[in-house]
């Protein structure tokens, strides 16, 4: 099947613009790690996932667990573009009473399958969903995106054992390997090296790709679906802050909002 790569790249760019705009409006949020996963969000929501935006709780839908919940501006943008809720909601990110909480909350946001934000918990939940699907005889997929710094949480490795032990090949997981966490690089903070090798040692089928290359993302997911009995971890080499020159590879943009001038400059770079 020929896929429209150019279209997905445009969607990713739109997601990036919405990330900048919504975080700028909110005055707080996490632009760096949202921008680094925008290409994956576009590929999942505009190509890969079997979903019905008009029926968010459709039983047979593919699920997405944003374990690195602080990157929710990317998810919120994708969901709005898919029509889960009006685009105007993005203007109310992090406001009192908003359906768009500072971290994903299934209780308020249509399309958010799992509440996340406390790092390290998402893969366990994804495993549980896959076990439930198996009990129900359903074959939907559960996609789970983790941060690279997040793999410093012990629960990630508890869950990594479980996915393999229970042969949950319908869990397709990703690590956003942008090498930065709040206090510095993941290597200098916790000697967090060779993420791929660690998951391989736990028995995963590991693929390493360019996380900003839409074709590679799609191919990796296709390949993951061919893996029988062994779950797949797709390690995406990414750039934190991707697409906005002054944010790229800058640890300071993990959790701070751009000013109005910076928003204008970023949007200009993103082709608005």
């Amino acid at each position, binding site marked *: 099947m020929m896929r429209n790569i150019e279209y997905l790249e445009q969607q990713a760019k739109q997601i990036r613009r919405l990330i900048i705009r919504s975080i700028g409006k909110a005055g707080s949020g996490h632009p760096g790690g949202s921008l680094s996963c925008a290409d994956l969000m576009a590929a999942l929501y505009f190509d890969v996932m079997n979903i019905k935006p008009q029926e968010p709780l459709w039983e047979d839908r593919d699920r997405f667990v944003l374990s690195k919940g602080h990157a929710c501006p990317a998810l919120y943008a994708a969901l709005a573009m898919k029509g889960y809720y009006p685009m105007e909601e993005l203007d109310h990110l992090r406001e009192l009473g908003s359906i768009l909480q500072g971290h994903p909350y299934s209780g308020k946001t249509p399309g958010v399958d799992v509440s996340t*934000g406390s790092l390290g918990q998402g893969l366990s939940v994804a495993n549980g969903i896959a076990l439930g699907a198996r009990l129900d005889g359903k074959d939907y997929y559960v996609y789970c995106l983790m941060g690279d710094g997040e793999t410093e949480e*012990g*629960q990630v490795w508890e869950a990594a054992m479980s996915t393999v032990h229970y042969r949950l090949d319908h869990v397709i997981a990703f690590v956003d390997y942008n090498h930065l966490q709040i206090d510095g690089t993941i290597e200098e903070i916790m000697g967090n090296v060779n993420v791929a090798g660690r998951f391989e040692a736990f028995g995963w089928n590991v693929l390493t790709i360019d996380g900003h290359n839409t074709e590679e993302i799609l191919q990796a997911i296709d390949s993951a679906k061919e893996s029988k009995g062994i779950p797949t971890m797709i390690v995406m080499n990414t750039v934190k802050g991707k697409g906005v020159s002054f944010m790229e590879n800058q640890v300071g943009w993990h959790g701070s909002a751009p000013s109005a001038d910076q928003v204008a400059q970023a949007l200009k770079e993103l082709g608005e």
Partner: protein
Amino acid sequence: MSELIATRDAFGQAIIEFAENNEKVVVLDADLAKATMSCKFKDAYPNRFFDMGIAECDLVGTAAGLATTGKIPFACTFAVFAAGRAFEQIRNSVAYPHLNVKICGSHGGISVGKDGATHQAVEDLAVMAAVPNMVVLNPGDAVEMRAAVKAMIDYDGPVYIRLGRNPVPVVFDPDTYCFQIGKGIKVRKGKDVTLVATGSLLDIANQAAEKLLAEGIQAEVINIATIKPLDKDLIVESAKKTQRVVVLEEGIIVGGLGSAVAHALSEQYPVPMRYIGMDDCFGQSGDPVALMEYYGMTAEETVRKVKELL
């Protein structure tokens, strides 16, 4: 002497019974199935049982995922590890999104005995009650446990339930006993003092009431199996009659049932109170009966505290 059954045994039996006609019920454990008695479910329904290994955080997270698919997961381990180690998973992955996960903490209280303080949950009920959205249950005997298991399956939402390790007397009549989440039960009528007891200490409260009666003091005994939401009406109504209250629990007083009762009464009808429970301390190794005596969880100590109020 009535029959002795540990509430964990009653739990293991009940969950099999009610899972027979409810395929949504699934059970997870963290390598303690033979202690929490979820092993019975494993034998009966192996396809619906998942051992997650010695990994309580993953246990709770996996249960949360199963709940999002419409299952009713019972996540079982020791109370210390459930409410302690996996506290934040329970808070963020289960309670906050109001998922239908049942957290089952076995070996609650100090009557665990010789394993000592590391394995004696004294604060599980208090910390679970502090979490918004959580229903917290602490059944007192086998009959109440069976009924509570049925009720928590019927209730759509997160529940914490404490299971006891040691055999305790069966006090309720299985033919007439009716359990409702949030409702306490007046098990004995009296006019001079109210004894509010939960879990294993219901038996102690009843023994104390007998001793008091021998001295002409009529104690009203209220059994509270639901720590949260608390049956405030029942307690306030009784306090209005007796004018004094003693609360009994096998756990820390701060944040536990003692605090909850004091909170309710202080707002609606303050009366002098006393507490039987762990006074801001950990347990230790020892024979269960000796431990209960050491920490003052006895009928004699209850009688002594009642007399302080008379």
